[in-house]
């Protein structure tokens, strides 16, 4: 099996301000393949919590649009996950 690649996948950060925004994130998780980095899972998302999640290249546009439409501020922590995976090996010498 070929290893999974994460080309152009993003990691987004949001901070839901209220229950409505927290529920938006949970709803997006139901209809998209979001990988939650923090918290561990969508059902833990709560208001005023910093939430980090990974989104595929194909879904990132629609996710970002949904956040924009709901006036939910987001930050792109990682723009291309595959590049960061390769960059983690930044020490060459022992």
């Amino acid at each position, binding site marked *: *099996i070929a*290893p*999974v690649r*994460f080309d152009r996948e993003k*990691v987004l*950060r949001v901070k839901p301000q209220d229950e409505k925004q927290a529920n938006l994130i949970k709803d997006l998780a139901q209809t998209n393949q979001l*990988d*939650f*980095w*923090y*918290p*561990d*899972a969508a*059902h*833990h998302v*709560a208001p005023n*919590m*910093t939430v*980090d999640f*990974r989104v595929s290249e194909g879904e990132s546009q629609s996710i970002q649009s949904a956040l924009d439409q709901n006036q939910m501020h987001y930050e792109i*922590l*990682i723009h291309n*996950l595959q590049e*960061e*995976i390769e*960059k*983690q*090996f*930044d*020490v060459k*010498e*022992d």
Partner: protein
Amino acid sequence: TPGRHSYAKYNNWDKIVSWTEKMVHKHPEMVSRIKIGTTVEDNPLYVLKIGKKDERRKAIFMDCGIHAREWISPAFCQWFVYQATKTYGKNKIMTKLLDQMNFYVLPVFNVDGYIWSWTQNRMWRKNRSKNQNSKCFGTDLNRNFNVSWNSFPNTENPCTETYRGPAPESEKETKAVTDFIRNHLNSITAYITIHSYSQVLLLPYGYTAELPPNHKELAKIAKISTDALSTRYETRYIYGPIASTIYPTSGSSLDWAYNLGIKHTFAFELRDKGKFGFLLPQSQIKPTCKETMLAVKFIAKYILKHTS
């Protein structure tokens, strides 16, 4: 041959196995390797016992790598063993600790998941159990301990990242660790588990908002140890009970160990706070490990001095 092990790099499983052999060979008077069981895919689960050979002494059990993608966690366990062996006889604190207590270090708890994260999917978290009647693999080992195991919803779907498994301690990895700890309960006086990320030091409980009877003491230890950690590079940690500091969880190793009777249990979530997350660059391994050593050594010192 697995290639050269390095404390400043992430090491794959083969390198870690080879490293355990080397540590035992190099420090036979201080390091022994115990096979405590095997994984779902029949890989060995190795605990390194650090310290003199006396089983009756106080001991601290520390595990790393419950969640496969948290690579800084096994890196820390390897660093800890390295520092213990390198500084014994030279560093006053380490010498005192190892003269009077033992450490049981499990460098990789979730071996199959760790291997999978190296070879197939860097984002893998769970173990590699085949789930009955499901196309999805894996159980979250940190939801699989027998403490309020099925009391929370949303942990029953095998396709989710926080799947608790078909039964408490259903996973071979969990069972091997719980059996080991139970069999050594007369000596184990503290339990430390290492995760990443978010820079938090967690205390019991996760499954309830109630505080354990010695919460004040645990919070005091957490405060001092995170203060100690920050002295190195000014890395800031927060601390507190799992349920109120992050979110309620069930089936965690921390709560299980506490309820078993180990009244000093701590879970570290190491660097960073999200800039790299699970992909902490190798250049940050050494500073992360150095600062975390300060916290762990403080906890060990406290245990040595204040527990019977």
